[in-house]
């Protein structure tokens, strides 16, 4: 029954084809196909994770060949975490996308393709196969970013495509170096050959490490290789921003950790302390620069995007420590960040759909106008800041404790003060939401509560930006600040549930840590 393993990759891909073909019969049926596919994927990945809990890691070689000649798929605690995260997030975002769109069938084809690509990246045990899935993921992501109306998203998508391809190509070059040095591509086999025959200080291995890491840094969006990311997140449709901000960089960071520790192993970092130092330095720079840039943004989605640069700095910092506690922390933070950041993008989407507000300035007085959305957004923001006992705090605790254990004081300082850096940009938002009065933009009428204007002119809402394709722009004038009617229950539900989870899931982390502990121990041994 281990045949379930390749099915985890195949299922979303097949569903993607079905979604596309369903468009022949009936347009706008893609969402339903995606829903069925995602539910099945959640069930499948949950079952796989259950088996990992029960029996330990699952190894499967496609086509019944033997390692290292065939391609191996591995599901251990960490990859199980990723595939479940991917499936659940995809399902959650679907709940949002039903009303918010985009709604075309090819869109959901690409959506499911992304799920398949990310799942493949998570479970593959072969370095070149990782590249193939990286490119599938990349293609799906570029396309999804470009799925928004208007030229802006196309420009962002093209930029992303060019930079992302360079990243993937450098990754491929890194694989080339490793292959030239060892003659094999299976991760476990590579680790063995590097350790026994080639040696950790060989130039080829160092070069391979450098290219693989830089290539994945591009995909993770570590400063200064993040340049594609803010515009891509900001210009994509809200559903897509949420999905890719939650998953693409996350799985890339997972791949980074996987490659560093499974292929190159801890011994490589020990033999090349400079490599670990450079990782840590890149992480620290990313945390600080990402936060500073986030503070400088006026567009909320761009701010959230830069926030991701900073948060992935924390993950990379944890990865550079080669310490069990920190590594668990990296995964807690990966999952936590995925949930919180994805939901923050969705919350920003709810706000934009309901009020048209997309810049920080336009968030003035949002607490009055949209209490539920604003409240969820604030809770998620605080969780992101790391206010205890939220998920954001727990992840940070593990990472920081790992830094203390290894005596990395400089990194510890960066990690704990990232709280303040994160606060700097989120407090600004929260202050505007709750502690400023809403001021209707100049030249608008019919928005002040006591302004007895002609009802019906509220079509002129506070919206200077493009709304999603289906935004019909009609809202009823209930004499209040302009509220669009097209925020569905599903859109609210996802955001609110995520906010609640962000607060409460921290309590479950210790259990999770027990679950991944053996995997992490093996990874770092």
């Amino acid at each position: 029954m281990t045949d379930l393993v390749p099915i985890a990759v195949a299922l979303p891909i097949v569903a993607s084809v079905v979604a596309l073909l369903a468009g022949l019969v009936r347009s706008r049926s893609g969402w339903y196909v995606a829903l069925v596919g995602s539910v099945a994927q959640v069930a499948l990945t949950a079952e796989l994770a259950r088996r990992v809990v029960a029996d330990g890691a699952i190894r499967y070689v496609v086509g019944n060949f033997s390692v290292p000649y065939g391609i191996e798929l591995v599901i251990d605690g960490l990859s199980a975490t990723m595939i479940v995260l991917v499936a659940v997030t995809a399902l959650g975002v679907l709940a949002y996308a039903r009303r918010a769109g985009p709604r075309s069938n090819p869109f959901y084809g690409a959506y499911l393709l992304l799920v398949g690509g990310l799942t493949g990246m998570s479970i593959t045990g072969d370095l070149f196969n990782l590249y193939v899935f990286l490119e599938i993921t990349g293609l799906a992501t570029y396309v999804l970013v470009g799925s928004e109306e208007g030229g802006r998203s196309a420009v962002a998508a093209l930029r992303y495509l060019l930079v992302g391809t360079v990243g993937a190509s450098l990754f491929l070059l890194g694989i080339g170096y490793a292959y030239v040095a060892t003659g094999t591509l299976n991760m476990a086999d590579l680790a063995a050959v590097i350790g026994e025959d080639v040696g950790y200080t060989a130039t080829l291995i160092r070069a391979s490490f450098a290219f693989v890491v830089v290539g994945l840094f591009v995909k993770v969006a570590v400063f200064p290789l993040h340049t594609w990311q803010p515009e891509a997140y900001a210009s994509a449709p809200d559903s897509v921003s949420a999905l890719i901000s939650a998953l693409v960089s996350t799985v890339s960071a997972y791949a980074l950790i996987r490659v560093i520790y499974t292929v190159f192993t801890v011994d490589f970092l020990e033999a090349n302390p400079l490599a670990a130092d450079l990782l840590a330095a890149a992480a620290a720079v990313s945390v600080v620069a990402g936060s500073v840039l986030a503070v400088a943004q006026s567009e909320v989605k761009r701010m959230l995007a830069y926030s991701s640069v900073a948060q992935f700095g924390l993950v990379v910092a944890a990865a550079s420590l080669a310490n069990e506690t920190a590594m668990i922390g990296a995964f807690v933070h990966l999952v936590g960040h995925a949930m919180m950041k994805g939901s923050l993008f969705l919350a920003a989407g709810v706000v934009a759909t309901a009020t048209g507000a997309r810049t920080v300035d336009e968030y003035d007085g949002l607490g009055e106008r949209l209490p539920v959305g604003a409240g969820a957004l604030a809770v998620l923001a605080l969780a992101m800041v790391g206010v205890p006992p939220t998920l954001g705090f727990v992840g940070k605790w593990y990472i920081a404790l790992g830094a203390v254990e290894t005596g990395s004081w400089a990194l510890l300082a960066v990690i704990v003060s990232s709280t303040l850096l994160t606060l700097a940009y989120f407090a600004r938002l929260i202050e505007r939401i709750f502690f400023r009065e809403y001021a209707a933009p100049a030249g608008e009428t019919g928005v002040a509560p006591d302004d007895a204007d002609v009802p019906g002119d509220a079509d002129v809402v506070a919206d200077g930006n493009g709304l999603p394709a289906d935004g019909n722009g009609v809202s009823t004038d209930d004499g209040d600040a302009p509220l669009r009617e097209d925020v569905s229950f599903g859109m609210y539900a996802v955001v609110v549930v995520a906010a609640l989870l962000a607060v409460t899931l921290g309590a479950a982390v210790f259990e999770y840590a027990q679950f991944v502990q053996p995997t992490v121990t093996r990874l770092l041994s």
Partner: protein
Amino acid sequence: MTDVSSLRPLATVLVSAVAIAPILASRGRPNLRESWTMLAALATFGLSASMVPGVLAGDTYVTDFGTFLPGVESGSVAFALQADALGLLFALLASALWVITSLYSIGYMRGLDEDSQTRYFAAFAGSVSAAVGVALADNLVVLFVFYELLTVATYPLVTHDQTDEARAAGRKYLAYTFGGGVAVLAGTLIVVWLTGTADFTAGGIAALAESDPAMARLAFTLLVTGFGVKAALMPMHSWLPDAMVAPTPVSGLLHAVAVVKSGVFGIARVVLDVFGPETVSDLGMGLPLAVVAAFTIVVASIIALRQDNLKRRLAFSTVSQLSYIVLGLALLEPRALAGGLLHIPAHAFMKLTLFFCAGAIHVETHTDDISEMAGIGKRMPGTMIAFGIASLGMAGIPLVAGFVSKWYLLIGSVQAGGVVFAGALLVSGVLNVAYFWPIVYQAFFESEDAVGSKPLIENPFGGRDAPVPDGGRNADDEPAGATDGVADPDEGEYAVDRNPSDHVVEHSASKRAESPDAAHADEDAESDRAVPDDADHNGPYEPEHYDHVADDEDAPEHHHAGPPAGGWERRALSSETTWFMLGPILTAATGAVVLGIVPDRVAFLRLVEIVVAGATGVTL
């Protein structure tokens, strides 16, 4: 000491947190909303009081949820709450004073017709929950959790006014306290790393005494610095005076009791239950801390002298008094410890009284500056008497709470050989007199006509020479044709302008000249209105009746700072303000006196004795 597994600590923390939901839900119905607040306050107080007998008998109530975070090696950090003597001291204090403050809040918020009252009461309940959580935390990590939540919950209260000043204060508040939080987190991490645990242990965690002294010192410094932010140790105090833009009940309960004392309480936990007095002494960290505290005591007192805004003066007084507690802890001498800890409740009662008085003056007369308060004793006799009593206590005069704690402190500092510290205490006592006495003196013994003879006040008088004082804020709402001095060039002088919290300021010069009787009658009407009438849901407290400007055209003397042109009118104690405000004032003042006269009859002293015995083995 026996641990008793019980859900009571949890319930004590959760009651007020849970109350947030019904408070938010009943946002349209103020009376119902405030009922929830009162219910939660009484329940919290009842729960903490119910644990007193057990704790006095030597039990500790514990609620344990099991492991929350990993420690080092096999160690782990549990999410657990415990009600031991020290924790209960703080929990009991915060919850008792919340009951009083809740009543007062009703009078204050309605008296000023503040905006966003629902948010206010919800955030208040959240703050108390977090403060009680700080009190009942079982280990450093849980304490940190609630410490941070307290910051989050109080932020909306600081920024309540939504003015630029309030927002700036809020930002500063967040920056300072989260900065402190970062230091606490780092210190906690190091402690966990050194010992594998973070559990509070009477007398200190043993493993810490044997660990690397440099690391232990670093951890101690980080923790004390972090907690010192909320404890307003200089130079990390400056958020506190700025936070005085918050409504006065907030300043009273949170910025004189719950928030600032969570900082002090954190330091107490660190000194007594994490490191233990002995280890602190071995590490040589007591003296530097004592020096910082003594410095803060004296300097803050001197700064307080120069503040004309009453709340700012009180804030600096708080800065100074908090350091009494820190000094007591830092001296590591049993009696000094007892004095410091006892000063937690003593200062709380006295300072709360003082803030309540300031708030009552603000609501009734819109006066915030001391220089405008000459003769105000006529207008608000009960308030100013309470103010006087609390001031005496602050200065350490016998028969009021402050005396007992300062006595212990003084003895302790002499025993510790710190003559310098004893000197600082005495100097500060004198300064206390110097900055409180003029307020009381001028309130009762000077008339508003006497010019500039008050000692130690440098700011010019406002209101006295101005021919037609006008708030100037709502000029548009003036009745047409009112021949008042809207363009009065002096109006920038008024406290109202310097204190945007008085954002509902309305004054009609033509009305001000009305006979005192008429004004008096209106005032009575105002007092009546302030009594919530549950049966009358269309009563004046329904939101649609909140049109303060329109309602209060007839109650002019409420709306400008300083005495009215004819001088303060003389009022009886019962009519000077509403009972919603006077009641809490008198209760708090009574509490301060009771603590001063029969300290051993109140649970606090006995709790302190247990704490000191646990930490040092010395029975007082």
